């Protein structure tokens, strides 16, 4: 991984990476990547992907409305950092 790729990764992960930190991060991440690279050298031809460990397929429910309880609603509002009316309030998204 290059310093540039690291910066981009920082943006995607919403982590600020200072110039002074680049070298130490790169060292750590590159050693992790080396482990992953060693694994990807294995021949996986003919092996089915195991994205899901369980054998379950087509797990679904019927289309029935069951609203959350008032207690759940109140609790969700209570744990939100900020609310206004029944809206959740967040930092401004669009620049004027």
């Amino acid at each position, binding site marked *: 991984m290059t310093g540039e790729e690291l910066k981009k990764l920082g*943006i*995607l992960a919403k982590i600020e990476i200072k110039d002074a930190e680049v070298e130490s991060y790169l060292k750590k991440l590159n050693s992790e990547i080396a482990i992953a690279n060693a694994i990807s050298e294995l021949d996986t031809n003919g092996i089915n992907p195991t994205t899901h460990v369980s054998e379950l397929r*087509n797990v679904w429910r019927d*289309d029935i409305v069951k609203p*959350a309880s008032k207690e759940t*609603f109140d609790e969700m509002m209570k744990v939100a950092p900020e609310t206004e009316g029944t*809206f959740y309030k*967040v930092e401004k*998204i669009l620049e004027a």
Partner: protein
Amino acid sequence: MTITYETVIGLEVHAQINTKSKVFCECSTEFGAEPNANTCHICTAQPGALPILNKAAVEAVVRTGLALNFTINSVCMFSRKQYFYPDISKNYQITQFEPPLCSKGRLDIISDGKTKNINITRIHLEEDAGKLVHDIGACKLDYSLVDLNRAGIGLMEIVSEPEMNSPEEAYQYLSELKNALEYLGTCECSMEEGRLRCDANVSIRPAGQKEFGTRVEIKNMNSLSGVREAITYEVERQKEILNSGGTLVQETRLWDTEERVTKSMRSKESAADYRYFPEPDLAPFNLSQNFIDDIAKTLPELPQAKKLRFITDLGLSDYDAQVLTASKPVSDFYETALSGTGIQADKVAKPVANWVTTELLGKLNAAGLEIQASPVAPENLGKLVGLVVNGTISGKIAKGVFEEMFTSGKCPEVIIKEKGLVQISDEGAIAELCKQAIESMPKAVEQYKAGKTAAIGAIVGAVMKLSKGQANPQAVNKILADLLK
């Protein structure tokens, strides 16, 4: 020398799936509720909450796919698409990557009077995001408000190939797609309520060039005509830039419905990378052929097939068939009216079509009403046409009855009885009226006898007047001709 450009358009349509509950939780999908009233621990992404898939949403996507000639990928799964934005509280959207539920479909449109086949790349199932409020009325807020009622409503994302070459073709494609979804009942398709949304990828290239030009994505077009107008504007904007020696940038632009222009959308960062990976919280699909076949069995007749049937089986003109199948509510109305006549369909198809396309649609249009809100029920319009066809009332009287039906909503028999409008077909009674008319119009009688047969029209008119329009005109003609021999 001016360069001729070719326009290339691809459309990405998001259609809210018409289910009662959301796709991954049991909250209601009802529109217009109080902010966050339709939310729970799942659609607000409380820690540890797990999604539970709505079977009806899967069926709706498969149903849509089958109707639009797609291949159904019976083995597929959900993926996570990562992005940070307050409208998606998990910080990822549950969607599908490769393969989607449906691959490679198509839809026919009419362009320049010819049928053109538009290929559709894919339909996948995903969840909708919440809504952000940035201003209240004219007042811009210095913060944003989040309403998650929409978050987690099932969406079908329907992505076309870049195969449309004019704003009109894009408009036709979207209209046909909307119509098909309405017939299938898989989406309510109100663009105003945001149940059907459309983004357009627009580029231009010198005619004959193989490579695509720089692509611009347009968002925020919230009506069918808005899509046509926004694309028309964008194509002209791109031509102007290229013709003046400029270069285009690949970007997302918003359609401004007030100023009727597209505006560049400022984005804080360009490093978009969604890092898709398989969604571990939801089991993959392995849909059986039975599951797919059962859905295929319930497919309704689609607009294009219906149009063809109206022409071949009912003998309607191409134009009438087009008008009557252009939206599901109209074709539903027509077919209900047709069976309401109580007469064999092919015998009344044309008169019922006339009444619906001219009288009814004209009057609804003037009153600013949708056909669903028609004061005249389809069964009653059918009865009215039936009464004309079987000779109970004349066409002229029927028009008056129709006016009354439109105002009062009453059924035609009641109006006819109340006003004593039943057509007089009794030959004795008509003959009596004819004699009176002949006596009162010696001049016309003379002309008729001298060989000017058209003069009979005036006498027929007099009979109709004497009968207050209730005499059967065919019978009047016949009896007059006999009397004047």
